[in-house]
């Protein structure tokens, strides 16, 4: 009995981990390229979720179909953020951009509160809630679908990063900004593209998130913390490592929840956060953050 529940919690953790990985991918991209830790990342994810929620309620659009739209909306918000705010203080110490994005995050969270109120929102598609059995393990269709979609999106981003000129430029800037500038890469332009790409990934992740969980305006900090810890786990700069980081966090959380108690689910997430930071701030995989 215990083994069965453990096994199914592992499978569930892996499936959830896929969405976690997609959420943290955008953060990792912006962090790696620009050395900006975007503290409003969780709020951007939420925004994508609310856009998908709105399209579902008003137009009866399936969240999987509204994903590109959510990505576009959040991407344009990201463009505004980078062009008018973040690029203004590129020269200032790193903690300034940290405080700046914290302020933007608070702004977005409260703007969401103004528009959609503090109620818990979720996209309920009956098709998603049906379960599929794999031997003793039962998983819902929504989990499987969102996992495969996130996996597909992560692979897509991975191909862009490894196979195109733009991807090469992004990776060059991640490795060594000054050398990349000397090689003739227009770093300002690449910064903007990376920021918009990161925001679009956040928006896409949001529309998947809202079909699995309830969202509310104060959730942003929690999402940012999760994304942050996954990036730390997988090592800053290793963007494909986020899959492993996301799955690790998902599995650890879901096993701990099964073994300890569901009412402490949130607490477990934060305890894992602290423990990871204390033990391994430089990343378990990939290169270190400094």
């Amino acid at each position, binding site marked *: 009995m215990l083994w069965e529940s453990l096994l199914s919690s592992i499978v569930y953790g892996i499936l959830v981990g896929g969405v976690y990985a997609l959420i943290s991918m955008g953060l990792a991209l912006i962090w790696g390229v620009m050395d900006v*830790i975007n503290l409003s990342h969780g709020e951007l994810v939420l925004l994508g979720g609310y856009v998908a929620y709105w399209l579902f309620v008003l137009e009866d659009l399936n969240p999987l179909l509204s994903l590109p739209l959510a990505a576009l909306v959040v991407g344009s918000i990201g463009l505004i953020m980078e062009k008018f*705010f973040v690029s*203004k*203080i590129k*020269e*200032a*110490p*790193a*903690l*300034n951009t*940290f*405080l*700046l994005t*914290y*302020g*933007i*995050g*608070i*702004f*977005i*969270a*409260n*703007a969401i*509160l*103004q528009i959609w*109120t*503090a109620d818990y929102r979720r996209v309920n598609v009956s098709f998603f809630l049906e379960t599929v059995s794999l031997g003793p393990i039962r998983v819902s269709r929504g989990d499987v679908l969102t996992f495969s979609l996130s996996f597909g999106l992560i692979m897509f981003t991975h191909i862009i990063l490894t196979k195109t000129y733009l991807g090469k430029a992004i990776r060059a800037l991640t490795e060594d900004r000054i050398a990349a500038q000397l090689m003739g890469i227009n770093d300002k332009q690449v910064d903007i593209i990376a920021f918009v790409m990161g925001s679009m990934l956040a928006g896409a992740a949001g529309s998947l998130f809202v079909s699995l969980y309830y969202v509310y*305006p*104060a959730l942003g*900090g*929690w999402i940012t*913390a999760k994304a*942050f810890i996954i990036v*730390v786990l997988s090592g800053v700069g290793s963007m494909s490592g986020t899959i492993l980081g996301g799955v690790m966090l998902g599995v650890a959380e879901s096993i701990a929840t099964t073994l300890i108690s569901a*009412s*402490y689910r*949130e*607490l477990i997430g*934060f*305890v894992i*956060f*602290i423990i990871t*930071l*204390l*033990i391994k*701030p430089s990343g378990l995989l990939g290169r270190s953050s400094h």
Partner: protein
Amino acid sequence: MGIFKGKISSFELKTFILVVALAYMLPFMVGFSAYILHVLNLALIISVLSLSWSILVSCGQISFGHAAFFGSGAYVSALLAIDYGVPPPVSILISGVFGALMGAGIGGLCFRLGKLTGPYFALSMLAFAEICRIIVINLGPLTRGPLGIYDIPPFLPVFKFWGLTLDLYRDKVPNYYLLLAVLLFTFLVVRKVRNSRIGFAFKCISQDEDAAETVGVDTFRYKLIAITVSGLFAAVSGAFYAHYTHYMEPSHAYSVSWTLLPVVSSLFGGINLLSGPIFGCLIIWCTDEFLFTELLTRGHELLLGALLVIIVIYMPDGFMIKVKELLTSISKGGKAEAVTENVLPRGEEELC
């Protein structure tokens, strides 16, 4: 007076005395309006919190979780006063000790075990605040869970004799003077610390931690001192808040406001000035209460967030530095000498 020892120019002393005198006359100037005094009292309490946040910043550490100390201080003091009958002044002191111990514990974990810096430390503070909130919600029998605590006794006594009641609590003026004295005491302690050898080490660490370590500054020890003192005053401010407002519940005690307000007001006032967090907080809190809350009844933090963005981009040195330049130029016949640079913790302490 011993506490005034150290470098202090007569100009600074004059300004200081003028400001304190003004502050003591303020209740007369607002005509003893209970509403305005109530807002001011809360502003004084949050100023203590801002000052405590700025101690940690002067050591180069940014915290996004001062709500952890604030809320825990509030809970410890309120529960001691209600469940164990400890008189509020004593329970507030105990909560200060609790905050200091908590700060030392978190500091030991983060700075010794984890060697966390910059964003890693800031975000782990955020996680600590969340952990505290969840624990308080789930420890129902001890903390009364999500419903919160009602009827927290006030810190000023109510005298009853021969059918007459002298209610020092409901009258806002005694509270105002008491809280002003608390703020003044906090300010003088913070000034003493920052102008001492310890403060010098803080400045050194905030400018370049590795260099400080190389020249023999025990960085762990000083960071531990900073977070301990910071935790102490943040918890005391939380305790005063709980006793002043009579009511506490977990999501209010550990609200993001208690993290956001010190950040915004310290940056607005200017963290390189000792008095920056105080004036910043008074201005921000009153603006928030009289203007922002009127504009947006729900989610007025929106405007605080926007303000933070504007401050970071357009005036990272804060607003008080401009006032100080103006005052200096007036007193010296039009010659301002202050130089501003866009480095966050510049670490130059002045009195006013």
